[in-house]
């Protein structure tokens, strides 16, 4: 897993802490994106993502990955954010992008990058997300959290 190289125009003094910068291209959520606002209906979130990914031609094993990742992030929203979450999903020729936003705040910039102990009874969620996605961008500040998951189309990785 690697984090998106910061876009040149993001490397400004406006966000001295890179973790709080907007995700790449933020503001450019395409008009074609399919969106869903959710509170606790995670099955609907999973259903939408599964259907979209299948229609877009993502391979079945990668659909499993993406649905798991999206559900784990939505679960964090249910648990911690005390607000509704917003999902936007779109694709280009090369990839599917899922953007998840909520009003919660992730204070640890390295959240999910270290494997939890198998016996740990927490902390698997974001780590799993990082394992199954081709790329994960997390930005979090006092205004909320934005996470973008990228899945390459035509990738054989399973």
């Amino acid at each position: 897993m690697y984090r998106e190289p910061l876009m040149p125009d993001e490397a400004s003094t406006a966000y001295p802490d890179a973790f709080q910068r907007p995700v790449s291209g933020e503001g450019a959520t395409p008009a074609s994106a399919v969106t869903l606002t959710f509170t606790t209906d995670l099955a609907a979130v999973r259903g939408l993502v599964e259907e979209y990914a299948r229609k877009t031609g993502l391979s079945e094993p990668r659909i499993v990955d993406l649905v798991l990742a999206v559900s784990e992030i939505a679960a964090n929203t249910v648990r911690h954010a005390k607000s509704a979450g917003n999902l936007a999903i779109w694709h280009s020729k090369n990839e599917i992008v899922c953007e998840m936003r909520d009003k919660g705040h992730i204070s640890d910039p390295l959240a999910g990058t270290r494997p939890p102990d198998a016996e740990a009874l927490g902390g698997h969620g974001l780590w799993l997300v990082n394992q199954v996605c081709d790329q994960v961008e997390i930005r979090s500040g006092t205004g909320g959290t934005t996470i973008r998951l990228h899945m390459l189309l035509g990738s054989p990785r399973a």
Partner: protein
Amino acid sequence: MWYNKGVDLLTVTVPARESDGQPHTLMAIAGEADVTNREDLRGAFDAEVALEPHMLIVDLSGLRFMDSSALHVILQANRALDRHGGMMALVAPQEAVAKMLRLTTADRLVPVFRSVADAVAG
């Protein structure tokens, strides 16, 4: 025992119980298990673990999806069973669930079998 939240989101049945004279306890979890119904899942596991079975076989064949909070419920039940010398076995996970068990290495803590018969044979 039978739980059903909303659509067919999570269903837990217990086809066999040691306390009813069966050789093992068999639980079947079906549907989708996530953070929104984990307390139902926890309640179902707590009820069976409290009966202190020697062998708790969990049939996952009908479970389409499981997130990490459902996994934690299973791992907690496994730990509680272990404290009184009981064992847990997971059976026939679908691909999405099997992958989650692999990625979290939970499959090293709780043995996973293809069928109930395999689990009974150990």
